Each structure stands twice: as C-alpha cells, then as structure tokens.
C-alpha cells in the first residue's frame, strides 16, 4: 500500500535530518543551499525508499526535486512506487 502524505512528510524530515546530522525545518533548502551534494541526494533517495518501503524511479528527476520537504513529498507522490 502506498504511504499517506503525513507518513511521507515525516519520512522526508527524518531522512534529511539523518543525512545532515541536523534538525531540518520544512522550509530549509537542502540542495540549492549547498547543505547536501549530488551523492548525498542519492543517499537521501535510498533512505526514503527504505523508510517508506517504496521504489523511487529517478529517471527524469533532478537533485532539485529533493530540495525541501514539500518538494520531496511532491516528488514521491509523483514517482514513488510501493514495493510489492
């Protein structure tokens, strides 16, 4: 079953905090602020996949699609698929 919006939002906050070692506010820019680099975006994707038990197909995605919590939620809504 696909996770609901709140679960995605919580996972996004937790993954971003885990990756940066800091408490992350929803409005905090992750990529365009230089807080995380391209390789860290991939670690972020892996963390989100594990936390939500989904697969994110990165085709056509850019690091900027993970720039803040709202964008992460929107991106997962768009391209995330539940692991069967």
């Amino acid at each position, binding site marked *: 079953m696909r996770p609901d919006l709140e679960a995605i939002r919580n996972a996004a906050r937790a993954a971003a905090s885990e990756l940066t070692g800091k408490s992350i506010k929803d409005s905090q820019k992750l990529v365009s*602020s230089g*807080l*995380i*680099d391209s*390789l860290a975006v*991939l670690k972020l994707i892996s963390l989100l996949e594990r936390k939500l038990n989904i697969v994110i*197909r990165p085709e056509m995605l850019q690091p*900027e699609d993970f720039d803040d919590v709202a964008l992460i939620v929107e991106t997962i809504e768009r391209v995330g698929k539940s692991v069967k």
Partner: protein
Amino acid sequence: MSSRSELCQRLREGLAANDKKAVLQVVVGPDFHNPAEFNGASLLSEAENLASRFRTPERGVVLLLLPHSAELFLLQLGLVLTGRIPGVLAWPTSRVDPEKYQRNLVHQLGNLPVGLLVTLPRLAGNLERALPYPVAGLAIENGSSFDEIFPTAEVSERLEKYHMSPGESHPSDDALFLQFSGGTTGAQKAIVVTAPMLTAQFDSLGRALQFGEKECVASWLPLYHDMGLIACYWMPLWRGASSIQIGANDWVMNPELLLRYVDRGKATFCWLPNFAFSYLSQRRELMQGSYRLDTVRAWINCSEPVRARSVTEFARAFEDWGVRKESVQASYAMAETVFAITQSRLDRELLSVPRAAVQRGKQNSSSLAFDVIDDVYVSSGRMLADTEVKIVGQDGSVCREACAGEIYVRTASLFSGYWGAQGFQEHSLKDGWHATGDYGFLVNADLYVIGRFKDILIVGGNNIFPEDVEAVVNTVEGVYPGRVAAFGVEDKDYGTQSLAIVAETKVDQNEEDSSRIESTIRKLVLTNIGIAPRYVAVVPQRWIVKSTAGKISRRENRDRFLKEELAAGG
C-alpha cells in the same frame, strides 16, 4: 603531409567506409529509449557540415561550451577534421549561480588565445561583448531548458588585460585538440594534444586492451574529461569501433541507464571512476530491470585511486548478471599524457599489496592531501609500451620496490607543458619526465597509486582545487580572510572524497552567527564551484593550524578536523 593531416585523412577514410555500423549513439533526455544514431559515413558528413558553419582561421582554437548533446560530439570531431583545434569546457551544473558563473567564465578564459567560443544562443549573447574574441550561438535539440537558466542580460565584466595577436592562437602545426586541467574558478590550464601524442597513446593502449573494431564502449563520462574524450569517444572512432554516450547528470540520477545500454549495445568496455563502482553496487537491489553484462571484457577503474572494497562489491553485486571478477580492471591516467599510463592485464584479477608491506617516508606521507585507507593497495596495472615510470623520494633519489614516493612519468604521449597566451610552460618537465604530484610505489613492475601530493581533491572523479574553494570562502562576511582550509575527507560509502571546509571567524560568534556564516559558505561554494561541501565547520579564532613559516597546512587542519570536529558530530 603532416602527421595531423595523415591522422585526419585516415580517420576520414575509416569513417566513410563504415556506412553500416552505428559508430556513435548519443542518449539524450527526455527520450532515453531512442538515442541519436550515426554510422561512420553519416557521422563524418554531419560532423563536417556542422563544423563548416563556424568560420575561423585554420588551426584556430575553438572552445565548446555546450551541454551533453549529439551536437557536441559532432562539433568536436568536425572541428578537428576541418583543421581547427577544439577544446571542450565543462557545462555548469544547474546549481551554480548563472550570473556569477558567467562572470567567472570571462576571467577563466582570459589567458587562452582563442579564435571562437561556441555555446548556446542566450549565453553567447550575454558573453559576446565581454570576451575579446567572437562568440557564436548554436541551438541544439532540447537545449532551451539549459539556455534558459541564464538571464537575458549582457555580462558586465570585461577583460582588461588580454594580449593576443592573430598569429599567436596556433599552439603547433600538429595540434588536434585541447584538454583542460584547471580549477573551477581559476584560469584554465590547457593541454595541447597533437597527432603524434594521440597515435602513440592509441597504439600502446590499443595493444594493452587488444582493442579492435568489434568493441563497443558504453560511457556516461563527459567530453571535458580525458576518460570520456580519449578512451570512450576517440579511441573507438580511431579503431573503427562504436560508442554509446549517456549524459553524466542523467546517469547520476539513473545509474541503471548505463547497464541498460551495456546490455542493448553488447558493450565490451566500460571506464568508470572508483566511486561509480560503489554507487552502482549500492543501487543494485533497487534496479528495475535485469541486464546481461557478460559481454563486457573490461570494467576499467580509473581517475581516482582504486579501492579494494569498491571493486569487490561491484563484482559481487553484479555476478548474477555476468560480471566476472577478472573483468574488473584498473588504469592510471591523466590528461597530461593524453590518457593512460598503465593498464592492468585483461582476464586476470587485480593484484594487491598489504598496506603494512609498503615503506612510506615520514616526510612524504605528512604532506599528502589524502591517501587510500584500505588494508590493501590495489594495482593500477603495468606501464603501457614506450612508457616509463619512476618513483622519486623526498631527497630526489629513485625509490626501490615497495617504497612510496612521487610518481614521475615519461612517454611518447607526454605533453609539452601547459599552453596559454605565453606559449608552452615547460617548467613541470625535467629531462622529459613529468612529476605527476601523485604518490605511489612499484611492485613487480605494477604501479600502485596511494594518493596525491598536491592538495587537489577528487570528488566523484572530478578534480577540485582547494585554493578555488578557499578564495570563495574568504569573501564571506564574518570569516577571517586567509584563515580558511579546504580539504578532502574520505566518503567510505562511495569510495571517493567529500569536500570539507574549516573557516575561522573574525570575532567570537554566537551560535546564530556561526549558523548564518555556515549557510553563506555552503551557498557560495555551491554557486561558485558547483559542488556542495559535505562538512562546513565555523571555528573560533586561532583554531586553524599554521606552520612556523605561517603557511596553512591542509593536512594538519584535516587531521584536527577529523579528530575534534567530525568525531564530535560537527
């Protein structure tokens, strides 16, 4: 007939005769399933047609600043074949500040005697009055999204000191193209690749790899990188083989794309920097498809020191798709020698030497910017034919086996010094030897690369110059100018380095000020250098370690950072 003319003639004849096989496929989004495809004859005619649209003097230097596209591959080749000397510049990532990037560009390109710069139309319009040579716009398929990141306004920067008479723009009669080995914001250092250098490289590397016309190279490496330009594009062209080219940014977000095209094109060679081996392994479980990879004769680890863990994980992760341990290979290469210096032996597992078995001079290792921290060092293979390597100690003497020192190289494909407005700078060459700045040792004629003397970081296969980073950080308000250190920290997950920065503040700062300074540093480094630092530590006055001569030691500051800041979770 000059060696350049002979090379071009032979290449032209080879391509013209090859009108059946797809010698070049360029995979460009958004349609990743249908690459632009060229057989030898169509590649030749389209490349020459495109190049003929740009009128510059014979042997004039033409810089290409274009995103990954079929047009870039065509134009680079076409300019060579029509007598010009192209040089491919790195296209910026989408995260750099476009205005700053444009201004930097004007200064970066200021020391090169150039005949023409070709870029996307909007950027060309912005730059044409700022640069002292002509700038031409080239619209490429699906290129508008790249061009639109730039504002529609002329760059206000002007080059004040630029001396070039028309005759100065010819590096040498045999010059084919330029490769660059420069910083992100500093002046570009150009390496002139001549016809004799290129043929010497292809002869020796081709022999080591038994590289014939049936080979197919699958690549995501950009043309501004020697591995992408020489191994993955020109070598297949020269040998009548084929290549499949994927954009680097597309690959980073979707690494599976490479494996899909390895399978589809029955690729036989694949060059990758070390981090890519780790990265692909880690994405294995999440890949959607299943691919046949047993056609690949060699997955060649190159451009970063080879990590045992990265190659072992890769072979294990893709064993069920046909990757054999013996197909994982290694090479030591640099643009200064066109490309490869060594190559491991095909169909044999990579050799290694226990770290404890290697003698390392204390003075040598203390000045290293970084070194491999595995228990073993992995061989980068043996010297190519007509290539000599020696290991030189701190006192200038040649080191014995298993004793580490600076790697020196002498080969027929060696450059003649960096080239610019003042001609060739030959100071880096001594009696035909080039001091590489890399640190390593020899065992049984195999070369092992440990790390670098020069403080250059290698992040995901890209050279980052700490001076560039420090210059940017020094401009941040609140930072004590001149008391900044940038260095590399091992990223064990991906087998590469991460950028770390330590910056002293002018006065004691509260937490809020430090946080603001850290944010500004991150943003500025990203927008100017194009890479996000993994760690930024804003530290109080007198934290930075300086030598008795007053010089900042990046190595010592790195050690202190690892011990105090990183260990404390900073």
